[in-house]
């Protein structure tokens, strides 16, 4: 911590004194660091005067009213936050009587105001990374930002692990070029590697000092696991057993925020609480599929203290401070300790009172995970994701944007982008390939020189070929790609019998919201599921709409869990393995769970910390293989895909598999126990790391997950447009064409820069190859095989998932073969 003193003008000290307040230490630390000429990263839990800490230097600089032009640019991940800060900042400014103008700029700001802001900016502009990218792509960017002294980055931890962070880093590198005197202040929640975050903001101006400041003090959070009188479920994610106890907890608190991991869990919990809501408590629902107006209504009611509880997903992980929340509940797996800590931080923003949180595991494995999370939080251990190398797709977008701003020399732009932390190790060769991609697609077959978007002038400058290029760029800006969604419309039930669609469905019902299109690909007509707090039946699809009717059943048939967005963190997984491997610690677990583990020890073996347990047993007409890597659903899905391919080659005749956060179960016709016993199947070979070579390659060739990843890269990089001027391209059309583009490109140029970008993303993202690789190397020659006569206690949860969870897989040739056989049988009169 730097020992410097801050200088506050009297108008500000008077304001504090008049209210009987004093500036907090961390607020003064930021000011002192700024006044010493440094940039700084402030690590502090949510709330507690962070906004003022960020803006005190600005108020100090501008107090005398002499500054002209844009002084401070504030960037947050949420436009709601920008608008909220505008409000929070205006109050002290007007109370102090300071001549400071503050304006927000988001996608909702009127076009005329946005145009004026470019020419005559306010002193303080509050905006998002996407708006920054737009602003610096204008030829007059230098005029607007030349005067800039400060950049304030809010909730930086939430940005740096995503492509929005890459875009922001590139934007910062440009800002530092436009305004060399600019100093950066970043605000972040507690993270695993604060030094990396400091480097992240220091990279654009390596000669400037960058301080790392920690806010000290604050009461430690109080975290406990729900002690239930009920029976803990073996599997599932609904936590129905806890609804009554949760309802009573809500009654005992002022305002409760209930976090779940998926939209369908939110639906189930919301419905469950209202089923028993005798006191008619105002309980609301908030998730990403509800309409924007609905969500705004909930947020407004929350701000004014009208709600007793809100059931929500990660949509409320960040955002406006709500002082009145006195309890945070996490229903279902906490997934990671940093994630948990940030959610807990949503309760009680008064610094000196502890935040209180309650964990509600929805099944027995989650009890272990919750226990691990409580320990990790007590030790203050952080397992947040580190910022990672930047994507080539985002770089391509930025390169085009910079060409729209001004013609550039490749040498200069290369030097500039390497001052963005995620691109600090970018080679010149890669940069040139990205530039070539932006200009003509970067193909080995030079077919598109005549259509080039960027042209190299004789004096060595890259410039856009025509003004339409800039227009297209501005319409495709940003890195947030929506899943293809369909509107869900409520219609009258048609009294469906078993059968098929024969005619159009009655139109004109109310739109309930939107849902991912791929979900409907798994439904049959008449299937029931939960949406918008009610149970509905699937009536059919037409173009971009799914039709549903009100269903009069109690239990939806399709749980539509689909997994959460985030996998179990490596750190919590390690702790869960340790708890299982330490029978001495089982005493602190609920009796039901401890008994379950003892039973596993007696009937099979416990998975040890550094090995992989593989159980094989017959059940019904199938043979099962269950393993327990604890590496998260995504890595397990990839493992499942690759193992099934191998088992097929080894003639073990696999039929399907299902993956959970903790385990993977594969079933098939071959007697796996016998194959292993007789040495015809070697587990060491089956699980050997070389599956990440040729097998992975062969699978990627046709993998739907790879295609989904490619689609995002293709849109972000500007290969395909997200919309045309005037007409929004539907998500469906983009999906279809991006799959085809992938096929054509992968077959002809598998080392194209965009395929490379897709591989990088897939390795970390949907396929989680990175983590799978680490696991395979950890368990090499440490596989414990346990043949059993029947299912083991530990395998029960994952076996219960079969039929409830989507059985994951690619389009199957055998499905068509089976259907064809069925048709022949039918024709022969055999059924």
């Amino acid at each position, binding site marked *: 911590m730097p020992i410097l003193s801050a200088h506050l003008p009297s108008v500000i000290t008077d304001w504090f004194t008049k209210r009987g307040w004093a500036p907090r230490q961390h607020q003064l630390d930021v000011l002192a660091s700024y006044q010493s000429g440094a940039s700084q990263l402030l690590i502090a839990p949510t709330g507690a005067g962070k906004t003022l800490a960020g803006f005190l230097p600005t108020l100090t600089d501008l107090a005398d009213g002499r500054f002209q032009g844009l002084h401070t640019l504030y960037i947050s991940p949420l436009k709601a936050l920008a608008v909220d800060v505008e409000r929070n900042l205006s109050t002290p400014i007007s109370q102090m009587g300071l001549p400071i103008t503050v304006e927000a700029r988001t996608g909702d700001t009127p076009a005329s105001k946005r145009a004026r802001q470019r020419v005559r900016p306010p002193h303080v502009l509050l905006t998002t990374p996407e708006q920054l990218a737009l602003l610096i792509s204008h030829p007059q960017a230098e005029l607007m930002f030349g005067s800039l002294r400060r950049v304030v980055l809010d909730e930086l931890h939430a940005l740096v692990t995503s492509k929005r962070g890459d875009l922001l880093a590139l934007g910062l590198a440009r800002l530092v070029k436009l305004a060399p005197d600019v100093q950066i202040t970043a605000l972040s929640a507690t993270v695993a590697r604060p030094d990396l975050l400091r480097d992240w903001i220091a990279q654009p101006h390596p000669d400037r000092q960058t301080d790392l400041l920690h806010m000290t003090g604050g009461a430690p959070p109080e975290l406990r696991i729900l002690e239930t009188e009920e029976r803990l479920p073996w599997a599932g994610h609904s936590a129905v057993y806890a609804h009554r106890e949760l309802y009573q907890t809500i009654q005992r608190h002022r305002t409760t925020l209930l976090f779940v991991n998926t939209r369908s869990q939110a639906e189930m919990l919301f419905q469950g609480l209202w089923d028993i809501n005798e006191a008619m408590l105002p309980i609301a629902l908030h998730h990403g599929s509800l309409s924007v107006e609905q969500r705004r209504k909930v947020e407004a009611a929350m701000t004014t203290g009208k709600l007793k509880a809100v059931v929500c997903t990660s949509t409320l992980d960040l955002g406006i401070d709500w002082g009145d929340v006195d309890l945070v509940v996490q229903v279902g797996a906490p997934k990671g300790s940093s994630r948990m800590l940030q959610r807990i931080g949503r309760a009680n923003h008064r610094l000196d009172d502890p935040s209180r949180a309650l964990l509600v595991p929805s099944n027995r494995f989650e009890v272990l995970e919750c226990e691990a999370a409580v320990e990790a939080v007590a030790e203050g251990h952080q397992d947040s994701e580190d910022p990672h190398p930047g994507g080539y797709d985002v770089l391509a977008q930025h390169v085009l944007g910079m060409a729209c701003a001004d013609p550039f020399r490749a040498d200069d732009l290369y030097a500039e982008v390497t001052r963005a932390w995620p691109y600090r190790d970018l080679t010149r060769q890669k940069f040139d390939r990205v530039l070539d991609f932006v200009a*003509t*697609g970067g*193909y080995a*077959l030079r*077919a*598109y020189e005549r*259509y080039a*978007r960027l042209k190299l002038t004789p004096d060595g400058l890259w410039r856009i070929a025509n003004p*339409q*290029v800039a227009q297209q760029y501005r319409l495709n800006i940003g890195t947030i790609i929506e899943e293809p969604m369909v509107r869900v419309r409520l219609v009258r039930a048609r009294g469906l019998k078993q*059968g*098929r*669609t*024969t005619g*159009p469905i009655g139109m004109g019902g109310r739109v309930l919201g939107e849902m991912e*299109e791929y979900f*409907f*690909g*798994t*439904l*049959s*007509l008449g299937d029931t599921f939960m949406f918008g707090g009610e149970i509905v039946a699937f009536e*059919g*699809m*037409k*173009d971009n709409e799914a039709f549903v009717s009100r269903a009069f059943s109690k239990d939806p048939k399709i749980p539509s869990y689909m997994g959460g967005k985030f996998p179990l963190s490596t750190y919590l997984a390690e702790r869960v393995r340790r708890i299982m491997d330490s029978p001495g610690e089982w005493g602190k677990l609920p009796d039901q769970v401890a008994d379950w583990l003892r039973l596993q020890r007696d009937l099979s073996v416990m998975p040890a910390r550094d090995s992989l347990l593989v159980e094989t047993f017959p059940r019904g007409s199938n043979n099962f293989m269950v393993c327990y890597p604890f590496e998260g659903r995504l890595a397990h899905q990839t493992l499942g895909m690759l193992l099934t391919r191998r088992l*097929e*080659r080894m*003639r*073990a*005749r696999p039929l*399907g598999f299902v993956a959970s956060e903790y385990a993977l179960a594969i079933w098939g016709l*071959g007697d796996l126990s016998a194959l292993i016993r007789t040495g015809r199947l070697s587990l060491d070979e089956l699980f050997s790391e070389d599956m990440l070579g040729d097998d992975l390659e062969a699978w990627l060739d046709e993998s739907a997950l790879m295609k989904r990843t490619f689609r995002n890269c293709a849109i972000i990089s500007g*290969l*395909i*447009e997200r919309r045309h001027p005037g007409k929004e391209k539907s998500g469906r*059309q983009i999906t*279809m064409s991006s799959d*085809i*583009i992938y*096929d*054509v*490109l992968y*077959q002809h*140029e598998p080392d*194209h820069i965009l395929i490379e970008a897709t591989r990088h993303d897939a390795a970390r993202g949907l396929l989680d190859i990175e983590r799978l690789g680490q696991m395979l190397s950890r368990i090499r020659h440490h596989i414990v095989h346990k043949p059993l006569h029947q299912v083991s206690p530990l395998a029960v949860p994952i076996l219960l998932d079969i*039929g409830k969870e*989507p059985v994951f*897989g690619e*389009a*199957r*040739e055998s*499905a*068509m*073969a*089976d*259907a*064809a056989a069925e*048709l022949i049988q*039918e024709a022969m009169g055999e059924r």
Partner: protein
Amino acid sequence: MPSPAAIPEPIETPVLRFAAHNFEPLPSGALYWRTRQTLLVADLHFEKMASFARRGQMLPPYDTAMTLARLETDLRRTGATRLIALGDSFHRPDSAALLTPADRMRLDAITEAVECIWLSGNHDPMPHAIGGTCLPELELDGLVLTHEPRKGQTGLVAGHLHPAARLAMDGRTTRKPCFVHDNRLLILPAYGSSTGALNILSSAFFGLFNWSALEVVMLGRDRTYPVPVKRLVGG
């Protein structure tokens, strides 16, 4: 060394019987008419990716070559002496003139080796300078070959709609392009490597078919599969 899959599938071509003629639906999406030694294909959409490039979207310029390779393989394997393309062979009216020299040479080799009949489609309504004959529509052995399907005519063979089917089996679905007919109207899947496909349960197909006589043949990796219509779902 990897051994072959556990359950070997005999590679067989089902027979598609339509309007008293026997056809062989191939996994590439072509329909082979053995008694006439004629290969029927629909919706090649040559130069589709390149047509995006001129609007600033630099899609990979390899789709035409891929479609040509498919066509060469089908012609060689079947030994067809005649090729009939059911319209939308070129994505834009001027695409034929903008082929890369390499693609143009391959296409010329095909038109020299077999008799080619190019029916016009909505994407390529005018005759072009590629070898063979350009026609709006063709009557042959009681069949009418054309681009766009229409109602009320028997023996109509068309393309245009790019049909696909989604099959639900064992709780999972598989979506592939397909041949679809009701013995009066037959629609071929799109053959071009850059073409998407539309579910036959979607509104574009409403009213075209007599549902109770519907037959659907889906494209697999190495063969095609006739599938029960009651197994099909939307999306």
